[in-house]
């Protein structure tokens, strides 16, 4: 009897300990996401998605005026992103952000406490590119946050987003967090939504480092899109 009791207590303790560890699910696939885009893809959101945290630190390291660091990195990252996307797909169409700006911002649930915000086209409305063609898949980039030692749960877990930032900011890693949705333009539904995080050891910050982390992000996105197929 005593042995049984001990065993039960051990099991209970293990369950409690395991239950305390927080783990998140960072992606969500539509049950009808059967095939990832391989040849052509349209992309949107690149104009407004890029945000740099610790802009003074970045401005100092890159020797760019503090006033123009956001605009500069936004253009730089956007170009790097597009270049890498064009290497991964045969045909990449850019849909201007203006085509999406009139859609309401909505939340998508990825996990119990993980929600990502973004603009999604209306049900029943097909988005056309500037040439009037209808792309089958649109990669919508909602937010691309660049910073140092970032943790994505601090941005997307609603229980943590009001936490104050630590006093001492560290810069061991250069981090990029990107939230995006692969949109089925034909049936107007989100096929795959995710928040990815890339960390890269920060030796001495140069534009090449930023280019590298954007490239890694795009590579991770293409891998995730393929892995997310149901």
């Amino acid at each position, binding site marked *: 009897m005593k042995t049984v009791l001990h065993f039960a207590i051990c099991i209970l303790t293990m369950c409690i300990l395991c239950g305390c560890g927080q783990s998140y699910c960072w992606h969500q696939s*539509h*049950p*009808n996401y059967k095939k990832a885009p391989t040849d052509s893809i349209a992309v949107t959101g690149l104009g407004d998605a890029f945000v740099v945290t610790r802009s003074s630190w970045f401005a100092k390291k890159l020797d760019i005026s503090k006033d123009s660091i956001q605009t500069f990195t936004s253009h730089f990252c956007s170009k790097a992103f597009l270049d890498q996307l064009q290497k991964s797909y045969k045909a990449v169409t850019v849909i201007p952000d203006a085509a999406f700006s009139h859609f*309401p911002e*909505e939340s998508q649930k990825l996990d119990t406490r993980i929600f990502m915000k973004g603009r*999604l086209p*209306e*049900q*029943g*409305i097909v988005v056309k590119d500037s040439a009037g063609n209808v792309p089958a898949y649109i990669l919508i980039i909602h937010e691309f946050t660049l910073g140092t030692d970032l943790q994505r749960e601090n941005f997307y877990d609603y229980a943590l987003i009001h936490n104050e930032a630590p006093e001492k900011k560290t810069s061991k890693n250069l981090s990029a967090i990107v939230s995006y949705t692969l949109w089925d333009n*034909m*049936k*107007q*539904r989100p096929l795959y939504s995710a928040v990815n995080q890339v960390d890269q050891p920060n030796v001495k910050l140069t534009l090449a480092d930023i280019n590298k982390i954007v490239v890694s992000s795009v590579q991770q996105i293409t891998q995730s899109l393929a892995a997310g197929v149901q």
Partner: protein
Amino acid sequence: MKRIVLALLIFVCSVFADNVFFHNHWTLWKDADVLIWSADKTPALDPKEFCLSLKRNNTGIGEPKCRLFGEWERDSIAMRYAGWLIANMDKGIKAEYLRARHPAMVAKIESVEDKLILFIGERDGQIYAATFDENAAEPVAAGVFESTGDKIALGDKIADAFFDGTTKRRLTKEERAKKMTEPDESYKEIPGFQGWAGVAVGYSQAKIPLTPNNWYSSHINSRVRNYRITKDSVSLWNFIDDSDPQVALYVGGTWYGFIGAELMYRYSYHDVKTDPQDTIYRELDYWGFHQHEVGINVVLSRTYNLTKWFHTTPFAFIGFQYSFFVEDIGLKNDHKEHSKAYDVRIKFEDSYKGALVGIGSHFVFFDHYGLGLRAGISSRGRNIEEDPSPDAAAEPTTIGSSTIDCFVNLGLEYHFSM
């Protein structure tokens, strides 16, 4: 024979051809207003015929009224959603993937009140159907049906698939307005109280089902010799019969339909297991103990309303009890003198304190009249009211300090609420 096989084959095919994706719980109103909404130029259903199908299929539906939902068919937001819906209703899809996202569309669905919306659309030669009510921005039921061109047959199939549940009376405008202003039950300052009182008969025994016999055999088979001698005295079942009927009275209640308490009293009578080979008992006419038990239980329960007139409340309870054993002994009339052993016969403790744990369920008819079924395990042990003395180890063990039995009883109950 061939005809039967063919008929069976057609029947099986027709069952598999029609496919219901999901059918969530929703309220089917009596005398329902059914609004048929379609993006097709000529809807696959005829409203009049569909009303007749509803009446044929569900006698409780009363006098339904069916019409095409022209308001939504002229509304561009609704038609956009209709077009999206028909494109996305793939086989086996879940309701959450068909949710309307446009705020104006969500508001439209929420404002239908107690009308039922039946969406019908044709795609790839098949008819897709979905129903909406006011409570969710997603369909509450959806499925696909073979398109045969026969509107009556299609109406029958849809009525059978989605509209065959029990119906509820629609509220009047005043009732609806009143209901809207009613406070939420959970926020009441005085918690809702459900009470019950009952009388039950049951049975108890020392052997707990599905446990090995050798746990109890020494207690059950034990006999009392010379008015006091047994192999051991740790359990009262060494002295008295363990398997006997019992009567119970109880009264209790739950707050918020979840947590509650119950007072109970139980009575049973146990004969002493005298050894028939012992000649000393020739003088004895009867010897037994009345067992009285009073206790209090904590009850955790949950109520399931199965029909208008019947609900069931499964519960679990845990509590403690005091047991009193009152001796009932008599000598035969022809024995004026009794033996010396009679005077020094076994005596039980004044009271025993024990615990009981178990599960059960109330089955309540018409809100008041119920049956209660419960089963559990109860124990009796020493009632320690003073510190043990330093030479406690040298003292003899308390008689019946580990007396355990299980019980089952069925009661008639009256339920009330405050």
